[in-house]
Each structure stands twice: as structure tokens, then as C-alpha cells.
């Protein structure tokens, strides 16, 4: 038996009991018509028959009983007298209900004409035309269905001021606010201005009221329904402020919103506007409106704007060179602004300082915004690899699945473009050398299908890209013997595993003896490494034999602007990328004398080779008495760069040097300084390589 049947059966039994109650009560009334309790009993019985009937599917009984109940209600009120006619009709009704119950049980038809006859008799007793509103359970269902079907979005402002005694009715305002939050985009702001001082405060009363700005696809009636149980003491104002139809209207000003809400008079707002200060601040200062109210009005403004933004959000395709041009101009602006700041610092004029500060802030924002435009999600590149993996793995008879994570990670357009080749190479490596053939994988207890995980994520000012496979991993011994064979190392003794793995990045290294179509065409990991380094990134490899290999790329978010360390050598200034700088220290003259012209310095016991920027760039002029040394970290080793003076950190907008100097070694670009001078950006890995080369040739 189903649940509804159980309920129906219970109801039937109950109704039958109630009907005998009805008869008893009727007979009692006949004997003692003055006793109100009998009438009440009678009414209650009919009331229950009706109410429960409608709930368990006995709609016909409910509708029929409704008429009897209405009459009995009048009898209770004393407007309909108790007479024989009434008693006959009630008894007839009772019989009719009983036969309806039986009919529902057996499926037999009910004498509808008899019902109608009784109903019209009851109506006649009422002697009032059409007062008894036809009772129909369908009405309720229909209206329920209507409510939820409105698809259009509206934004409303709701002010909910609960009466102080709202808690006494067991109502929790927080639940109502939660219900509103479920409706859609919702900002709730509590207004606390009515909370009295502690000794006046009655903890059982509610002093807070709320302003809610809500964007929802429900109707105003739905919102009103939330507050259906809230009593008249409370004040609920619901105003629709924007619907799809009037979204095109101008953005509302804060003052307008406050006036509309009735929080402040229009004249006060106008007066405030005249004095040209931040309107919100001013209104709060003048005490016309509380800070919370202003705050809440602002929230509403935001919600409406947000809504607008989402409705009109679309993209514009712009040629890349236009963007480059924009970045260039913004770069110049940043530089000019830096000069302006410097000049104004010298002038020392308070009147000038304020607009200059404004310009500084705005330029900063403009720079970030312009750089942001160039950012693209890396996802498009990722999806290209899906195809690559599919094609290559079937070619090699391997089963490989590519998993990508963080496709939404954004990177500078140029970085993404130049990342393409290195990534292709790394993934090819994983497919070719990393993942083993299915049979081999089964033997070593792995699933037949290999996995390559390609993931991108933000880490500080860097983007970290990981290429991880669950293949055979790197064989440290094989790498070592290969490196010895190629003459990259001599014995390999005392090398840690990670140091051995680094050897795969050495030029001309490849562990796979055969050349396959997939990888091993002479383009080795050294090329990948160089590519990543020109992007001012770094590469790292780790591996566990039999478990897989993981290559990690660290890349800067953008190429256009770097944090640099501004240094001076001779008359010229240079910028060293701050990301490479480890520490700065002094290079005492007597040390140079003691070192017997070997370019080595002891830094806390560690011998660090150093390079003089003056020597690299052939700068004239005498050495200063005290030189500075900047220790940088490049290619896994620490090298000192000797300069005359360290000026300080400097946000550098990189400008390319133009065609003539494109092949100049040792500099990666130039930048314009605040005073209009030019500084070269030192390509640190390059000058270290150059020096190494010279040394070798020299030896």
C-alpha cells in the first residue's frame, strides 16, 4: 500500500468517526439549542472533514462540506438560527458525506443531484448572495505554479525593518535574509543606527534593520512571500529598481538612490553636491544619513552595475599590433610619470605634489590595465596538445591520456606564443621517452594507459607550468655515463641525483640512441632551456625511476615590465633583473689585491667568481675606491657582478633596442629612466656565458 493510500485510509476512518460525532452533536443541539459547545463540536467536526479531505484527495467531500461548514460558522456567530431546517440539512449532509466516502472506496457513483440539492438548501439558509467563495484546491496549485515561471530578471531594493518584538513571535529575521540570498545576487547590509546604548538595550528586542539589494528572476510577489509571516509591526518596502526592460537607463547616482529610498531629502543632496566633495562622505558628515545607509546605497549601485556588466559583456577583437602600441605608449607614460615625480620632488611645491601623486596612481592603474589586456588564458595552447598526444601516441603504439589543469591561467600573449615550441618538445619527450609501451607498463604493474599531466597555475608573480608523466622516469646512471661519453663531465662522482638530471639540459645531450620521428632530431633539452630563459623563466626537472618525470617551468606573467636593480658603472646605468639578484655586498680594494687578480671572492666561506661590468662593456674611467658586488644566481650557480654603485630597485618598462642592436650580446633591452636618461638591461646569463667562453679560449 502506498503512502497516499495509507493516509486516505486513515482519513476515511477518521471521517466516519467524525460523522457519528456530527450526528450526535446535531441531536444534542436539537435537545439543547442554547448550548454553544454543541455547535462548536459540530463545526469542528465538519471543519476537520473538509480540511483533511482536501489534503488527501477527497476534493469532492471537501467542497461539499465547505458549504455545511460555512453555515455552521454562521450558527456559531449567531447569525443563522438553529431550526429544524438546519438540522435536517446537516443530517442530510452527513449522510451524503458518508455515501461519498463509500463511493470513493468502492468506486461507485455518487448521487450528484442530491449533493446539489443539499448545497442549495444550505445556501438558502445563508441568505446571502455569493458570499461563500467557491472553495477549490486547484486554485492554490495554479497560483503556485505561476509564481516560479517568470524568467525575467529584476533588481529590487528591499528595506526590512522588523518590529522590535519580532523575536516574540518566534521569527528569526536572519532566516528570511538567507531566503532572499537564495533568490539570486544579493547584498544585505545591516543598519545598526537604532541600537541603543547597552544599559537601554533589551536583548529580547530587535533593533537592527536591513537594506537588501537583490537581483533575481523571481517576481516581486515571490519576494513579498518571503515576508509573509512578518507582522504589521514590521516595515517592509520592496521597490523594483531595474528590470530587463529598463536596464538601458543611466546608472543611478548615489544621491538619487538615497533620495528614492527616502533616506534623505533631495535638497540636502543638492546642497551636498554643490560643495563638490564625495557625496557619501558629505552626507555622513552632515549627519543627514548614517554611514551604513550610504554604504548600502553604494552596494546597490554596484549590484546594478554588475548586472549591467554581465548583460552587456562581450569581447572586441583587436589587432595585436594595436595592443603592442598601447603597451608602448603606456610604457612611455610610466617613464614620463616617473620623471614628473622626480621633478616635483625637487620643486617641493605642495600644490604640485597632489596632482603628481594622482597621476602616479592613475598611471599605475593604467599600466596594470593595459598589461591585463594582453593576458590570454593558456587553455587554447593546451587544447592543441590534446591532438598532438593522440596522434603521436597512436603512431608509437602507446596508450596515453593527456590531463590538463588550470587552462584558465592567464599569461602574456607573447609568453604564450613563445612557449609553444618548448612545450611541444617537452610533451614529445614524455610521449617518446617517458611513457612506456602498454605491455611494459603492465609488467611493471601500472595501468596500460599512461598519463601526461599538463598544468598551469599562478604562484606569486610567476606562472608555473608542470608537465608530468607517469612513465619510466629518468635513469641517473644512463645519464651519467652518457654525459661522460660526451665529455660533459669527467667522472660524475659526488654528483647528486638532481645535479645529474640537470645534465640533460646541457647542449648536445640526448639519452635516446635512436632518432625517432617524434623526438631526438638534434633539438635537445638545451634548446628548451634556452627558450625558457629568454622568456626570463627557469626550468626544473625531477624524476623517480619507474614512477615518472616532472618538468616544471617558472615563467614571468609579463615580458613588458620587470622589477630591476638599477646600478651604475662608469657614467652609465644598467638594470639587472631583480629576480636573479641574490644579495649585494661591498668589494673591498684590499681584497682585490689579496686575490692575485683572480676574479674570486669568498662569500661566507663560499668562493664566488665575479665579473666586472666595466670590463664587459669596456667602460672608461677610473675605478671607484669602493666597488659594489651584486651576487646573481644564474644557471644554478652564483656569480658576482661588480658595479660602481647600486642605485636601487626600479620598475622597468622594457623597450627593445631597435633593429641595429638586436644581435648585441649581453643586453636584452633598454629602458628610459625617470630623469630622461637611458639604462641598458643586462642579459645576465648571456654575459656569464660570454665570460666563460673567453676564459676557455684564453686557457
Amino acid at each position, binding site marked *: 500500500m502506498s503512502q497516499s493510500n495509507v493516509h486516505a485510509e486513515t482519513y476515511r476512518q477518521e471521517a466516519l468517526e467524525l460523522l457519528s460525532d456530527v450526528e450526535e452533536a446535531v441531536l444534542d443541539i436539537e435537545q439543547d439549542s442554547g448550548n454553544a459547545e454543541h455547535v462548536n463540536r459540530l463545526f469542528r467536526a465538519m471543519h476537520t472533514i473538509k480540511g483533511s479531505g482536501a*489534503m488527501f484527495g477527497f476534493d469532492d467531500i471537501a467542497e461539499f462540506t465547505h458549504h455545511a461548514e460555512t453555515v455552521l460558522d454562521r450558527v456559531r456567530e449567531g447569525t443563522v438560527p438553529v431550526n429544524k431546517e438546519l438540522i435536517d440539512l446537516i443530517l442530510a449532509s452527513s449522510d451524503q458525506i458518508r455515501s461519498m466516502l463509500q463511493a470513493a472506496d468502492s468506486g461507485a457513483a455518487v448521487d450528484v443531484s442530491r449533493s446539489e440539492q443539499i448545497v442549495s438548501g444550505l445556501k438558502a439558509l445563508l441568505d446571502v448572495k455569493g458570499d461563500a467563495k467557491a472553495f477549490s*484546491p486547484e486554485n492554490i496549485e495554479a497560483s503556485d505554479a505561476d509564481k516560479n515561471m517568470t524568467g525575467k530578471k529584476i533588481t529590487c531594493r528591499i528595506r526590512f525593518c522588523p518590529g522590535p518584538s519580532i523575536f516574540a513571535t518566534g521569527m528569526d529575521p536572519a532566516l528570511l535574509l538567507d531566503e532572499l540570498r537564495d533568490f539570486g545576487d544579493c547584498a544585505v547590509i545591516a543598519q545598526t543606527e537604532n541600537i541603543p546604548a547597552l544599559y537601554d538595550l533589551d536583548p529580547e528586542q530587535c533593533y537592527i534593520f536591513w537594506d537588501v539589494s537583490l537581483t533575481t528572476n523571481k517576481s516581486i510577489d515571490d519576494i513579498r512571500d518571503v515576508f509573509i509571516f512578518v507582522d504589521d509591526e514590521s516595515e517592509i518596502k520592496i521597490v523594483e529598481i531595474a528590470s530587463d526592460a529598463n536596464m538601458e537607463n543611466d546608472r543611478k547616482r548615489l544621491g538619487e538612490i538615497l533620495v528614492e529610498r527616502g533616506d534623505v531629502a533631495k535638497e540636502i543632496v543638492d546642497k551636498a553636491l554643490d560643495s563638490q566633495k564625495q557625496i557619501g562622505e558629505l552626507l555622513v558628515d552632515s549627519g543627514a544619513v548614517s554611514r551604513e545607509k550610504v554604504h548600502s546605497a553604494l552596494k546597490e549601485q554596484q549590484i546594478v552595475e554588475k548586472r549591467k556588466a554581465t548583460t552587456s559583456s562581450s569581447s572586441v577583437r583587436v589587432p595585436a599590433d594595436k595592443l603592442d602600441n598601447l603597451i608602448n605608449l603606456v610604457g612611455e607614460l610610466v617613464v614620463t610619470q616617473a620623471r614628473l615625480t622626480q621633478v616635483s620632488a625637487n620643486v617641493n611645491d605642495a600644490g604640485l605634489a597632489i596632482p603628481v601623486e594622482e597621476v602616479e596612481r592613475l598611471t599605475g592603474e593604467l599600466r596594470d590595465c593595459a598589461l591585463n589586456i594582453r593576458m590570454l588564458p593558456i587553455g587554447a595552447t593546451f587544447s592543441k596538445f590534446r591532438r598532438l598526444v593522440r596522434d603521436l601516441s597512436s603512431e608509437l603504439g602507446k596508450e596515453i591520456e593527456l590531463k590538463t589543469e588550470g587552462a584558465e591561467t592567464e599569461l602574456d600573449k607573447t609568453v604564450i606564443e613563445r612557449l609553444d615550441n618548448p612545450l611541444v618538445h617537452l610533451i614529445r619527450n614524455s610521449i617518446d621517452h617517458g611513457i612506456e609501451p602498454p605491455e611494459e607498463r603492465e609488467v611493471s604493474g601500472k595501468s596500460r594507459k599512461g598519463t601526461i599531466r599538463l598544468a598551469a597555475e599562478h604562484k606569486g608573480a610567476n606562472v608555473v607550468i608542470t608537465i608530468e608523466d607517469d612513465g619510466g622516469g629518468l635513469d641517473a646512471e644512463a645519464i651519467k655515463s652518457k654525459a661522460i661519453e660526451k665529455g660533459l663531465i669527467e667522472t660524475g662522482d659526488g654528483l647528486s641525483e638532481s645535479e645529474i638530471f640537470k645534465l640533460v639540459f646541457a647542449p648536445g645531450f640526448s639519452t635516446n640512441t635512436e632518432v625517432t620521428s617524434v623526438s631526438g632530431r638534434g633539438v635537445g633539452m638545451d634548446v628548451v632551456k634556452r627558450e625558457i630563459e629568454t622568456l626570463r623563466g627557469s626550468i626544473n626537472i625531477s624524476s623517480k625511476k619507474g614512477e615518472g618525470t616532472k618538468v616544471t617551468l617558472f615563467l614571468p606573467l609579463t615580458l613588458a615590465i620587470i622589477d630591476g636593480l638599477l646600478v651604475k658603472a662608469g657614467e652609465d646605468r644598467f638594470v639587472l633583473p631583480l629576480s636573479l639578484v641574490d644579495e649585494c655586498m661591498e668589494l673591498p680594494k684590499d681584497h682585490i689585491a689579496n686575490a692575485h687578480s683572480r676574479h674570486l671572492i669568498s662569500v661566507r666561506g663560499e668562493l664566488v667568481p665575479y665579473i666586472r661590468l666595466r670590463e664587459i662593456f669596456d667602460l672608461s674611467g677610473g675605478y671607484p675606491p669602493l666597488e659594489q658586488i651584486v651576487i646573481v644566481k644564474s644557471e644554478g650557480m652564483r656569480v658576482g657582478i661588480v658595479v660602481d654603485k647600486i642605485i636601487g630597485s626600479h620598475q622597468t618598462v622594457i623597450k627593445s633596442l631597435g633593429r641595429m642592436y638586436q644581435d648585441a650580446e649581453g643586453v636584452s633591452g633598454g629602458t628610459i629612466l625617470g630623469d630622461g636618461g637611458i639604462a641598458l638591461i643586462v642579459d645576465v646569463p648571456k654575459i656569464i656565458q660570454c665570460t666563460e667562453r673567453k676564459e676557455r679560449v684564453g686557457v
Partner: protein
Amino acid sequence: MAKIIMTADDSASIRQMVSFTLKDAGYEVVEAVDGKDALNKLNGAKVNMLITDLNMPNMDGLELIKHVRAKSAFKFIPIIMLTTESQAGKKQEGKAAGATGWIVKPFKPEQLIAVIKKVLR
């Protein structure tokens, strides 16, 4: 811990329906057949919410609500009354007595749960 809801109704079928719906939704249910019974069962019991019919013998719903509100333990619990469409005036009386809200009979199980969700957490 499951919330405990008391349903006071003289109609066995309504009680059964209410209590079945509530148990289904994970509440514990205490049944009472009229106001007096409800008040008795409330003594010392830990009830989180009351759903009461208005028309009951011995003690009707309004009276029950007033008595319950007078007890400090139940001063702030949600109280829902079951009314019918013919009792519009009763809603106001009920609110005045301290009822939190109402459900108009006939109602469906979903409507009952929706109302409870609105007032009880």
C-alpha cells in the same frame, strides 16, 4: 541532532500526514491530540517548534499558543498554526497570540516543509 517538532491536531489523519512528512524530512515528531495534551507533553520536553491546529477540543490553538509563549523555554520557538481559508481573521488573532506563521489547509507536504525551512534552523 534532529530538531524536534510537536504537532498538535485533533485530526488523526492530519497528524499522521504531518508527522510522516516531518519524519521523512529528518525531524523528530511529538504528536498531541489537542491543546491540553500538547501543553502537558511540552512540560520538560525539548521541543524546537510547534505546529498546531486552531480548532481543537479541550484547548484550542490560540489558547495553546498563548500558554506556550508564556513558558520561558518556548518564548522564542517558531509556532506555526494550521488555518483554513475561511479563517482570515484568525491569522491576526494567532499572530497576536504569538504565532510565527501559518499554513492554510489544505496543504501539500512540500508546502509544509517549505514553511518549516522558513522559520526553523
